[in-house]
């Protein structure tokens, strides 16, 4: 039993078909519990009032926006090294989800920032690097769209993903250098003193789990769609030849 078995599209389709409903259901449960608990059963914070509750959307989506890119990077590396088509398709499937997460994080941040910082947008390092991440996602998706041959597209986007990762990281630190921050520090940390207090922490963890599962189920679903569309294209080609 090795993870490489799932490089076989058939095996992947079988297993993901079984797993997908469970993951989706679990994602729904976690999101419902986490968000309801977060929105309705936590007290307002002293300095922030009810606005603190946007944390249950903002933090998980921001985390997933970054993790989606990391997942794409790993999938791209696997594609370049071992040439497993499922891997390339998974990277392709993750990109729009990651982009959406980035946009959710930016939007909820703006909605929170308006009453709290008095502005929808500030050129703060974190905000700016997120905007740059959005641009990287857009470029990546545009390259997938532009190239006709699926294997060429997978190769080119993988190379772009690797180079982009380096530059995204570089930009992150360059932006730190460029402006001082307005954004607060990390909400989560292993050190209990650093993170938000427990009343908010537990529903936040549940929401994060929900977002991770949501991401997983969306990526599985989209990868399955990609595999099916690839099969369909192959069938059509075969029909035209015959």
């Amino acid at each position: 039993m090795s993870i490489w078995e799932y490089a076989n599209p058939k095996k992947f389709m079988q297993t993901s078909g079984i797993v997908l409903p469970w993951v989706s259901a679990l994602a729904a449960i976690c999101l419902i519990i986490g968000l309801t608990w977060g929105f309705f059963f936590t007290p307002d914070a002293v300095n922030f009032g009810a606005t603190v509750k946007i944390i249950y959307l903002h933090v998980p989506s921001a985390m997933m926006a970054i993790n989606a890119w990391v997942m794409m990077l790993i999938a791209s590396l696997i594609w370049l090294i071992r040439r497993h088509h499922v891997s390339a398709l998974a990277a392709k499937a993750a990109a729009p989800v990651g982009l959406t997460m980035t946009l959710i994080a930016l939007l909820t941040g703006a909605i929170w920032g308006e009453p709290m910082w008095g502005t929808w947008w500030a050129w703060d390092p974190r905000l700016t690097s997120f905007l740059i991440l959005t641009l990287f996602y857009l470029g990546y998706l545009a390259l997938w769209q532009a190239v006709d041959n699926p294997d060429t597209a997978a190769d080119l986007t993988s190379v772009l993903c690797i180079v982009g990762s380096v530059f995204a990281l570089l930009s992150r630190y360059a932006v730190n250098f460029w402006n001082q921050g307005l954004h607060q520090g990390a909400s989560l940390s292993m050190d209990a003193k650093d993170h938000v207090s427990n009343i908010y922490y537990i529903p936040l963890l549940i929401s994060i789990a929900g977002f991770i599962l949501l991401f997983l189920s969306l990526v599985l679903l989209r990868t399955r769609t990609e595999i099916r569309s690839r099969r369909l294209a192959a069938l059509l080609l075969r029909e035209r030849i015959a």
Partner: protein
Amino acid sequence: MISLLMRDITLAMRAGGGFGLGLAFFLLVAVLVPLGVGPDPITLAKIAPGILWVGALLACLLSLDRLFALDAEDGSLDLLATAPVPLEAVVVIKSLAHWLVTGLPLTVIAPALGLLLNLPTSGYPWLVAAFGLGTPALSVIGAFGAALTVGLKRGGLLLSLLVLPLYVPTLIFGAEVIRRGALGLDATTPLLFLAGITLGSTALLPIASAAAIRVNLR
């Protein structure tokens, strides 16, 4: 390799090569921005470093799409790929040629445009240093974008979407050097970062560019 360099430079300088277009564009940016934001010298001095760098980025971008596309059209890129010289070296040479006909002239006229934008005197040495050390990175990174899009029929717009985000660190450090220099501060730190980006991307990116070209020629 030297003959390839000379060939690229000659092609770029001859009519239709687009030499001078980038320069003219750079000049236009420096003229249009004051027309847009008003002639207040203090404001202009403040935004001059940013405008000069953004202008340089865009001017560089103009000539990028022909970096490999023309060679791909007439088939000479296939010859270069099968030549005894490694494709990585070809990419480096072509980037160098691109820099010599765009980045270097930009560096030379940048002080004059700084004058137009009322850049304080103490900024000029830093301006030249930042452009001299930073613009090679623009060519190398741009070559990567051009390599990705070489197989596409209309790659120009996509090229800018791919390349401009990669230019962010160069832009930030480059403009920071000039800003600090203009304020009379020591700008060594961002200058070193800028040089690091140039050296790092010159060392590593041609490998990625060559890989992309091989994929596109497949």
